[in-house]
């Protein structure tokens, strides 16, 4: 049998593809999993959309700020679902007791993480594309109409979601399924702090310092500037990218430290609580 020489391959796209394929097989064999990807984003978008309609009928400001709530909830979903897509794909390996198989295979941590990042985009697309079309149908809000700005927002939010997803994966490796709740709740700390639905000015001044340390804050401020003032704030996006680079590096370092600790404590085979 002919074999590649994986020993010489520091990063193998084929191994990355193998993991993406494994998760694609899983998704395509389970309609409840697919439905779950669409269900909550759709419910959230509809709820905030109707709220915005109601508020804008009674407030001149909100009438002029059309789409800020729906835009905010959809961008929040990119951030939250991006991280969840990463973390759930990782958790699926733990639920299936397959993590040991992967850890003892030639798969490298960088390949595993890359595959999970691709998987998070796939899961996000399955959820967000239908919801964005629903937003057009129900509220005449076209997320795609944001054009280049949407691409920049998307990349920034995705980078943050991956950084958190990578860090949470490290915690799960080290502490097993006992830390599962982190995967579901970690990002909610970002909800009040990154000012998804209100401007940063609303926060007490001491809290604003922390808010400006988080890349999504710049994205949500940028979104409001675009929808309300019709200005694309490139300066905010540059700062968001810079902070994301730091956050992503921190996530990767955290993951590697947790992985090393898991190898020291012998928790890689267990995966339980």
């Amino acid at each position, binding site marked *: *049998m*002919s*074999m*590649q*020489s*994986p*020993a010489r391959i520091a990063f*193998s796209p*084929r*191994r990355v*593809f*193998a*993991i993406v*394929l*494994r998760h694609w*097989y*899983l998704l395509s*064999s*389970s309609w409840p999993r697919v439905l779950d990807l669409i269900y909550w984003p759709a419910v959230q978008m509809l709820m905030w959309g109707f709220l915005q309609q109601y508020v804008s009928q009674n407030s001149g400001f909100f009438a002029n700020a059309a789409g800020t709530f729906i835009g905010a909830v959809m961008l929040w979903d990119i951030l939250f679902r991006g991280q969840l897509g990463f973390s759930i794909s990782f958790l*699926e390996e733990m639920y*299936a*007791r*397959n*993590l*040991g*198989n*992967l*850890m*003892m*295979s*030639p*798969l*490298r941590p960088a390949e595993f993480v890359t595959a999970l990042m691709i998987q998070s985009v796939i899961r996000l697309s399955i959820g967000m594309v239908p919801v964005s079309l629903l937003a057009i149908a129900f509220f005449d809000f076209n997320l795609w109409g944001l054009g280049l700005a949407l691409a920049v927002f998307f990349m920034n939010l995705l980078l943050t979601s991956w950084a958190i997803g990578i860090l949470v994966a490290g915690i799960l490796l080290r502490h097993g399924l006992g830390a599962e709740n982190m995967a579901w709740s970690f990002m909610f700390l970002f909800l009040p702090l990154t000012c998804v639905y209100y401007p940063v000015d609303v926060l007490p001044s001491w809290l604003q310092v922390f808010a400006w340390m988080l890349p999504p804050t710049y994205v949500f401020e940028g979104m409001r500037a675009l929808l309300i003032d019709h200005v694309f704030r490139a300066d905010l996006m540059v700062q968001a990218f810079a902070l994301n680079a730091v956050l992503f590096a921190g996530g990767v370092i955290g993951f590697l430290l947790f992985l*090393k600790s898991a*190898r*020291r*404590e*012998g928790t*890689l*085979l*267990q995966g339980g609580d």
Partner: protein
Amino acid sequence: MLAPATEFPIAVDRLVKLYKTVTAVEGISFSIEAGSCVGLLGGNGAGKTTTISTIMGLVEPTSGKVTVLGAAMPRQRHRVLHRINFESPYVNMPMRLTVRQNMNVFGMLYGCQDVAGRMRALADELDLHEFLDRQTGKLSSGQKTRVALAKSLINQPEILLLDEPTASLDPDTADWVRGRLERYRRERGATVLLASHNMSEVERLCDRVIMLKSGRIEDDDTPARLIARYGRSNLEEVFLDIARGTGEAREAAR
């Protein structure tokens, strides 16, 4: 650079593993010759899984050295992991995936160039054809074991690590699995390290047995010599002597 080449595919040198205050393995040393099958025996908590996990690169030694195919584990594991494989009750194949899908994924992970060809060969060898397109979770225990065995042979490993390979199987299926393992080792010249509680299995498959107790090697010899030395009629009785601490007295009395 790989660690200095050793004639032994597996070499464990003064391995110590502490988990906080618990000593799982306490300074054990052994090496395994190429093409041999060695049994690692011991009661629960004897240190078998820790030893095997360290050899696989899943656990970092507190001190001592583990070398596999010349690579120091776990630091240099990526140089040799494609030449090793394992089967363990601690892991499962993804249950929702069909057997064919699982084989496809693991074939790619282990660097098989002709995954379909390798899958066909394994399906012939291990009689998998009838359930290749069924979900792995819907198979019987015996069928799942055959699939796990197929996964462990997908890369034609030079070293095969087996942790309880026939646990929960009926005697007929267990015998069938042992036959396949013997054949693979004979044909491929693979080195096999087997942890098992099934003494007749160890007697049949292993050229040599390492007895562990409380993280230390209590004895190390061929099954026949151990049985003779302890004055017993089978390996199970030797195991009980060692586990209960009566072996030493018995040997001394002789």
